[in-house]
């Protein structure tokens, strides 16, 4: 595989506009969402929800609008990049609506629907306002400053449930850290592509076999990264810290092709974990809970959230209870956000969960593919990789957390979990990926093979 990537293509591959395929997949996504909504309605109220058809029509109309924009503004984009998020977003709305029905007084689905619409608005806006992703490379410094400002903002607001990640104004609350991760990815991509040569080939200091680039190159990046980590630790948002750190290490590795960065990253994250573990008592609790999820039950303190989440997954079994027929509401707090996957696991079973995770894998693989295809455009390649890694890391960290594979870290399952900032950000990510994949698929893009020797 690597050899084909390095060698110039033997012949021009036919490039097709694939709006038809995208349309078919979009119809499929709407149909699956309708079936899910109808099934949960029948289970909960005994009949198909009266607004099922109008909801499907609405979802279809929004999807068509987005598809039309892609067709006009990014005609060579990957046809999978739009239908997959439409389906995930639809499924998320179903699950949130279904959990609303189980908890009297909670009404999260309408707000999530509004945020999803706003997210698609952002998707369209990005496509319209950003005809060429390389424009972003020239705004790297601005992006870094904006990202830091966004991350620092919640410090001035009161904490919610122990974490200072919210900004409140009017009746709204936002998690600016969600937007910051896209900006940071842009900054990292721009900076790393600009200084790739220096990072990879210049003789820096050598510590135990690891080439370190000169301080002038590394300094700004480390500074941004350190500041962001500090801010996040002040805000006690460990999930985001983990995400930024992972993103940084992966992008550095891709930019420099030096596995040493992975080693440095792992060492640094281990050190960071130790420091955080001793400074933050609730990190220790999470780790203890992960090691022995049922210890609380044996001590008579009752089931922990992780135990309740495992119960929900376990009850789902292979085929699930069916939408609307599970009891994942027992998880309680954060059932629609961090633990949304447990509802999917219980009501759709291992089979449904596998399908869901494969959808994320599809999205990530299409993002990485765009990065690979964007040969010669270092910034685009790094940005596509970074955006795909944001989705992959988020999906993995929270899925692995709620299923007991790794200690639980609060994070939003992209598109699925309740959270306005998250869903808007994820639509922005998809818009950027569409833009990048369009650049990669554009006729002639493949002939501009100017990769550095």
């Amino acid at each position, binding site marked *: 595989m690597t050899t084909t990537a390095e060698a110039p293509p033997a012949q021009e591959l036919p490039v097709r506009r694939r709006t038809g395929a995208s349309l078919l997949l979009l119809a499929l996504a709407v149909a699956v969402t309708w079936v899910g909504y109808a099934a949960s309605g029948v289970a909960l109220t005994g009949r198909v929800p009266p607004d099922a058809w109008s909801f499907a029509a609405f979802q279809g109309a929004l999807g068509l609008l987005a598809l039309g924009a892609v067709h006009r503004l990014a005609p060579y984009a990957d046809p999978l990049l739009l239908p997959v998020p439409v389906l995930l977003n639809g499924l998320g709305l179903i699950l949130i609506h279904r959990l609303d029905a189980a908890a009297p007084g909670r009404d999260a689905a309408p707000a999530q629907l509004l945020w999803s619409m706003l997210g698609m608005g952002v998707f369209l806006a990005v496509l319209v306002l950003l005809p060429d992703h390389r424009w972003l490379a020239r705004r790297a410094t601005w992006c870094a400053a904006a990202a830091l400002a966004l991350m620092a903002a919640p410090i001035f607001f009161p904490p919610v449930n122990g974490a200072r990640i919210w900004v409140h104004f009017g009746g709204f609350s936002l998690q600016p850290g969600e937007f910051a991760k896209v900006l940071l990815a842009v900054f990292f991509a721009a900076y790393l592509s600009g200084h790739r040569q220096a990072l990879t080939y210049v003789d820096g200091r050598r510590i135990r076999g690891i080439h370190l680039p000169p301080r002038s190159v590394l300094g700004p990046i480390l500074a941004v990264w350190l500041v962001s980590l500090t801010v996040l630790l002040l805000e006690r948002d460990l999930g985001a810290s983990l995400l930024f750190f992972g993103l940084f290490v992966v992008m550095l590795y891709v930019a420099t092709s030096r596995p040493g960065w992975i080693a440095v990253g792992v060492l640094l994250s281990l050190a960071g974990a130790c420091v955080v573990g001793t400074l933050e008592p609730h990190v220790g609790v999470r780790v203890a809970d992960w090691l022995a999820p049922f210890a609380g039950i044996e001590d008579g303190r009752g089931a922990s959230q992780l*135990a309740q989440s*495992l119960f929900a997954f376990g*009850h789902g079994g292979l085929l699930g209870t069916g939408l609307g027929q599970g009891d994942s509401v027992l998880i309680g707090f954060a059932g629609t956000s961090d633990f949304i996957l447990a509802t999917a696991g219980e009501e759709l079973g291992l089979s449904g*969960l596998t399908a869901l995770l494969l959808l994320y894998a599809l999205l990530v693989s299409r993002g990485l593919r765009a990065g690979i295809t964007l040969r010669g455009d270092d910034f685009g390649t790094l940005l596509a990789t970074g955006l795909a890694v944001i989705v992959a890391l988020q999906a993995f960290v929270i899925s692995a957390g709620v299923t*007991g594979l790794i200690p639980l870290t609060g994070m939003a399952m992209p598109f699925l979990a309740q959270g306005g900032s998250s869903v808007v950000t994820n639509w922005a990510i998809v818009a950027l990926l569409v833009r990048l994949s369009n650049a990669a698929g554009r006729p002639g893009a493949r002939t501009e093979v100017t990769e550095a020797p």
Partner: protein
Amino acid sequence: MIRCIRHVAAFSLLLLLALLANAARVQVLHSAEYDANPANRRAAIARWGQPRGDIWAGGERLTGSVDTGEGLRYERTYPDGELYAPVTGYASQLYGTTMLEDTEDAALSGRDTRLAPLPLWGELTRSLQPGGQVHTTIEPAAQRAGYAGLRGRKGAVVALEPSTGRILALVSSPSYDPGLLSGNSARVKTAWRRLLADPRQPLLNRAIRQTYPPGSTFKIVTAAAALDTGVVTDIDAPTRTPSPYNLVGTRHLLRNESAGCADAPLREAFAVSCNTVFAKLGATVGTPEMARTAAAFGFDDEGPRIPSPALGSVFGDTMDAAQVALSSIGQFDTRATPLQMASVAATVANGGIRMRPYLVDEITDGDGDVVARGRPEPLGGPVVPGYVARLLQQMMVDTVTGGTATRAAIPGALVGGKTGTAQHGVDNSRKPYAWFVSWAQAPDDSLPAVAVAVVVEDAEARRSDISGGGSAAPIARAVMEAALS
């Protein structure tokens, strides 16, 4: 760069595989274990998520369900809880189940696979069936008569149909309202603690879960052993017994409550309940034969399951002559549940055939189809030969017509009975238990239709009146009248 992105892709794939493997571990491998975890409320939510099937007696609904709209949605109700508590028990969301609510729980909760329309249906749909209906053998009129007769005093009443073993009445007093324990609120906890702390032990099912010294009612068994072994061949022949009677090997002189016991024949001694005669008979029959007859009547065995487990009754088989003499008049270590003494009366009334007592007549599914039926079943061979049973019946009838049990007589019906007064406490210091066991046959029936045992613990009356004839016999009569009509 491209190579590194491929590495990233490969690593992502690895993460995905780890996620899927772990999900399979949680959802398939540990699924059953997690479902069974006591802190997992799913089983309880499913269990209380549909109304339980009901328990019935003679077309009367003994239970109901109320939709609370809470997490554990349906709570049990008991329209006449105190009356039927010994039959139904309670079905509590906090404290589990007892009695029929416990033994028939699979049917009532819809878990029973027999309720499913098709084999493996329940496994396939992963859901409970609508709760089954449990129809009991209880006759509401007899149950009411027994409960009313006890008037809140400590005691129990058991009525059986001698030819089948059907339990017609199962009364325990004082009782409690099982509905107080149905839910899971703080009030339920308070009620539970109060019932547990109550010195009168309302939660105790005295009909099957409490043994008493049977006193003179045990003389039925002693008479049966004496006749069966040939120690007595003519119930009208003098037994050559002195009064008072010196227990063999001791200086203890046994006396009688009534006069005319010296040398009395068996019929006479039975009617007026002569301790001396029956003590001597027991000693003459001997421990092995007494123990064998007692065991045939159901003593010294684990109690029957009706289907709730009853306590076993005790006679013993390692006694010297003086001890077996005392045991034969229902003292010493002899103890019996009211159910056991009702069974003794029923066995005599049924010509010596002892039937297994049972409470569940049939269980029907949601459509009313019968999925299980209680069947009459003899417990072993004849306890005593038919002629012995007839002689015992005669003596019991004589006791009602001209002995200690005249207050049990029902005009127009054939009634046989035996009184008992069981002393207890140190030096018999406490109020004796009043016993009465009897059976009754309607004029146009060929067999007795009902056998009853009544025990009253704390009869508030003069000592002579505490005797079974005074306190317990009228209750037995009321129950028999209700069962005959």
